[in-house]
């Protein structure tokens, strides 16, 4: 009763009642005064005088009443909402299968989208975790199309002359052997110039930063260690600052410990050593990555101008060892450098999981539309009993709100699990995985997805259900005439599902085709029987060529005596993960025209038996031998077929001469042989030609490759044992079979393919559920019609065909739209494809066929139910 009264009472009502009350008071007072003998006109005035400020009182009371009214109204609305939710909850419990499908699929969409977004957010959207990261840049030598690193000469000249940067620093990474006195371990060290941490704005948590004095040649070598190095290797020794650590056999003084949280550039580094650079005798080699912090008042164009000017000034000084006059210096935002090309892969993954969420919502929408339809009578009764259209709408929205909340609750653990997975395995294509977390923008996305879900699958059925008129009461429950609009809506929704699922399947198909093509690339040798690892011998323990040669010789002898070893060889690069050298050269017969850069190709130093161990065939000329390795200069090289075809497509290659590395004082280098190709630059890259030189027997760093006659993995243990016996302080790094290395190099692509395929499978399943739902409903609604047909002698085949054709019309439309959409979409991912076209006809046909097959199966189930109808029983029920 009271509730009714409040719902009816409006603002006007409040004012009228107040006036009536006050009027009544004045009347009573006047009557009293008149009774006391006062003339009525005076009495009225006296009553008003006694009352006081009528207008102010009226205003005050009205405000109080309105406030109370609002409070009551809010309270009632809240109670209504609770009631709606309770009714909705009970309703959902009565349809457990539908509830589970919606909560599960939308939850999956929300969870996956959140996890991928968290990764993209950390990699792409967030500023770098350094102080004022927008002023940080990477500086490089710019010789289009290549970008080179800096040399020590570059670094020294640049730091001395530049004025645009607050501070600049260079760094280079180096794997080193850390020894605690008993065992040696490989640690990833970084050699930095003293200003490195100043540039990034990182302060040590303990001790001090490097100073200019640490960078002077001859100073005591200084190290800054990471918090994890301190914890894991030094067991949080309290007096660590000032103590010494042994790296590659040399002592370094620990001057400080870095904070636990560093930036993406530092990921994976264990310790930082202060570089000590003296003025070098020649311009190269180029191995320094450069960082700079721009002064706040300097704009980028001016800074670039200054970079070029310094480069021009120093060019003449080094003319004797460096001729590429065209090369200049450039810079780009550090963030652009760190982010890399995460855009394509991250974007693709995000779009894929976002589409699954969308398709799950559309599926839910279609299921809920069906539910509204089957409850038309219930809703009509509610409307007839006085529930306003808004109330019915609210009731339906409450149901959607419950479903969306359920989906979000289901999605959160999925999102957290997804974040854990990306953190653990996503480093292959997402930088900054350590920073991935569910906070800030990620939480907003989660909230947005929940609200979006409510609106997406709530509004369509709600608007539809709300529009139901009381006419529904008059119709028979089984009548289908009024629901043709609903049927059309559901068909559109299901067609939409297929239209979204198709591109996902196409993308998944293309990625799988790419993966398969990469797995079948001929890398140039038999990968199944090669196993190897890397070793580096530091000068502290191997001071001269003699000690180096002795080590490698003993190593070779030991390994050759292991059972199952068919050959051992050495090189300075390794397929497929470590191509360490590129070199430029000038052909005698084809000088580089002015204004163009010299050609640059992979440059691999190998031991004489390398070709034999890897099974490369000699096409022409001779292989390298011990005499070549003994030469001071590179006099003879072997090239591969691709090189020969690229530079001398029509002529003889043997005997051609070149000047390598821009060295004008060196003697000419002659091509003495041509061998078959190896895909050093990558499985998915075209061959650009490789040059092989002879590896010095006294090299410090080398990859060891062993050809086995049996299972190569079985040799990993014995190989490690040999190294341990020869030098217990030498960590043997990245020991693996070539097959495993190829596998690792494809892991990024593989997990992307798995993700997209899983997503596409879910999309396909949801679409199948969608079309099944529509057709099952169709059969139920048309059971009378079907029964009549069959009673009149219609064949079961006809009925079956009728139902299937109805369903397939919807599916075909959706798939057709989807195929057109995917042709447009796959062009954007061309950079991820290899060996398959973005509009690969086989993939497109295959996807269309697969979707048709699944849809046929989904339509066949209701069609079978249709032909199982007993005409007599259906018609009797009527």
């Amino acid at each position: 009763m009271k509730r009714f009264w409040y719902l009816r009472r409006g603002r006007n009502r409040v004012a009228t009642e107040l006036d009536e009350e006050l009027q009544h008071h004045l009347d009573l007072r006047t009557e009293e005064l008149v009774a006391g003998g006062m003339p009525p006109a005076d009495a009225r005035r006296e009553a008003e005088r006694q009352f006081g400020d009528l207008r102010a009182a009226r205003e005050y009371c009205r405000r109080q009443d309105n406030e109370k009214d609002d409070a009551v109204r809010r309270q009632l609305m809240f109670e209504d909402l609770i009631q709606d939710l309770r009714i909705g909850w009970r309703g959902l419990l009565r349809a457990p299968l539908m509830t589970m499908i919606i909560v599960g699929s939308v939850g999956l969409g929300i969870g996956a989208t959140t996890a991928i977004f968290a990764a993209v957010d950390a990699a792409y959207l967030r500023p770098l975790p350094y102080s004022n990261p927008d002023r940080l840049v990477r500086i490089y030598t710019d010789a289009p199309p290549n970008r080179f690193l800096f040399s020590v000469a570059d670094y020294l000249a640049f730091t001395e002359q530049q004025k645009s940067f607050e501070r600049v620093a260079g760094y280079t990474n180096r794997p080193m052997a850390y020894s605690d006195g008993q065992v040696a371990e490989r640690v990833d060290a970084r050699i930095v110039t003293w200003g490195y941490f100043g540039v990034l704005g990182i302060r040590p948590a303990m001790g001090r930063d490097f100073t200019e004095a640490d960078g002077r040649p001859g100073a005591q070598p200084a190290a800054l260690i990471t918090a994890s190095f301190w914890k894991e290797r030094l067991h949080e020794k309290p007096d660590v600052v000032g103590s010494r650590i042994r790296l590659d056999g040399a002592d370094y003084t620990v001057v400080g410990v870095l904070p636990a949280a560093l930036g993406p550039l530092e990921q994976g580094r264990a310790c930082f050593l202060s570089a000590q650079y003296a003025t070098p005798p020649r311009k190269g080699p180029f191995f320094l990555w450069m960082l700079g912090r721009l002064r706040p008042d300097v704009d980028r164009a001016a800074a670039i101008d200054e970079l070029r000017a310094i480069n021009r000034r120093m060019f003449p000084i080094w003319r004797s060892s460096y001729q590429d006059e065209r090369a200049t210096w450039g810079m780009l935002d550090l963030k652009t450098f760190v982010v890399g090309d995460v855009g394509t892969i991250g974007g693709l993954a995000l779009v894929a999981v976002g589409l699954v969420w969308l398709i799950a919502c559309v599926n839910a929408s279609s299921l809920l539309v069906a539910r509204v339809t089957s409850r038309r009578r219930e809703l009509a009764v509610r409307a007839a009993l006085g529930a306003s259209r808004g109330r019915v709408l609210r009731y339906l929205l409450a149901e959607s709100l419950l479903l969306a909340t359920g989906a979000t609750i289901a999605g959160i653990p999925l999102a957290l699990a997804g974040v854990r997975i990306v953190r653990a395995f996503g480093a292959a294509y997402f930088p900054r995985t350590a920073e991935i977390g569910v906070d800030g923008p990620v939480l907003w996305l989660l909230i947005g997805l929940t609200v979006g879900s409510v609106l997406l699958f709530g509004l369509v059925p709600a608007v539809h259900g709300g529009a139901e008129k009381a006419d529904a009461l008059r119709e028979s429950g089984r009548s289908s005439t009024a629901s043709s609009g609903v049927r059309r809506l559901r068909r559109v929704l299901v067609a939409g599902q297929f239209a979204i699922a198709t591109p996902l399947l196409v993308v998944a198909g293309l990625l799988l085709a790419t993966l398969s093509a990469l797995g079948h690339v001929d890398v140039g040798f038999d990968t199944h029987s090669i196993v190897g690892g890397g070793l580096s011998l530091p000068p502290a323990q191997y001071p001269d060529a003699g000690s180096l040669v002795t080590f490698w010789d003993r190593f070779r002898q030991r390994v050759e005596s292991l059972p199952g070893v068919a050959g051992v060889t050495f090189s300075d690069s390794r397929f497929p993960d470590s191509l360490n050298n590129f070199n430029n050269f000038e052909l005698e017969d084809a000088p580089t025209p002015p204004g163009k850069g010299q050609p640059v190709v992979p440059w691999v130093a190998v031991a004489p038996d390398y070709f034999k161990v890897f099974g490369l065939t000699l096409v022409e000329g001779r292989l390298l031998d011990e005499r070549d390795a003994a030469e001071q200069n590179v006099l003879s090289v072997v090239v591969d077929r691709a090189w020969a075809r690229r530079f001398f497509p029509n002529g003889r290659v043997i005997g051609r001469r070149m000047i390598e590395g821009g060295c004008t004082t060196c003697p000419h280098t002659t091509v003495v042989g041509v061998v078959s190709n190896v895909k050093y630059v990558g499985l998915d890259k075209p061959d650009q030609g490789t040059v092989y030189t002879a590896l010095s027997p006294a090299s410090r760093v080398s990859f060891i490759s062993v050809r086995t006659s049996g299972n190569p993995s079985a040799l990993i243990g014995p190989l490690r044992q040999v190294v341990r016996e020869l030098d217990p302080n030498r960590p043997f790094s990245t020991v693996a079979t070539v097959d495993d290395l190829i596998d690792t190099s494809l892991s990024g692509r593989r997990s992307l393919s798995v993700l997209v395929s899983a997503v596409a499978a879910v999309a396909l399943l949801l679409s199948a559920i969608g079309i099944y739902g529509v057709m099952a409903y169709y059969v139920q609604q048309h059971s009378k019609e079907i029964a009549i047909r069959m009673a009149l002698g219609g064949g079961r085949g006809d009925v079956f065909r009728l139902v299937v054709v109805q369903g397939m019309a919807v599916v075909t439309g959706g798939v057709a739209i989807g195929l057109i959409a995917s042709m447009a979409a796959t062009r954007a991912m061309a950079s991820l494809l290899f060996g398959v076209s973005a509009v690969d006809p086989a993939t497109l046909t295959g996807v269309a066929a697969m979707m048709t097959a699944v849809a046929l199966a989904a339509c066949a189930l209701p069609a079978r139910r249709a032909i199982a109808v007993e005409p007599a029983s259906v018609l009797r029920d009527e």
Partner: protein
Amino acid sequence: MKHQPLPLVQGTLDLLVLRALVSGPMHGYGIAKLVQERTEGHLSIEDAALYQALHRLDRQGLVEAEWGPSENNRRARYYTLTAEGRRRLREDTANWRRYARAVEALLGEA
């Protein structure tokens, strides 16, 4: 009347209105009359202030308003104490008494 009626001490109006309603539902005019009679005209309560107090107490949920027939056969708004209002009256009465005693004790010394 020997004295001018005293203006009301701040905050006591609500207490007086609540007290007036202890005996049962009353409309605004009835409360005004009751206060006037009980205090023998020593306290002056403006009608305007009285109605403001009533509507304020209504909003606070200390009294409840309902329409009912009045003496002159018209519709009047009758106010009733709510349980919350009764509790407030008890507390405020006790507070007022303590306050008055404290003031009295101080003035008694003069």
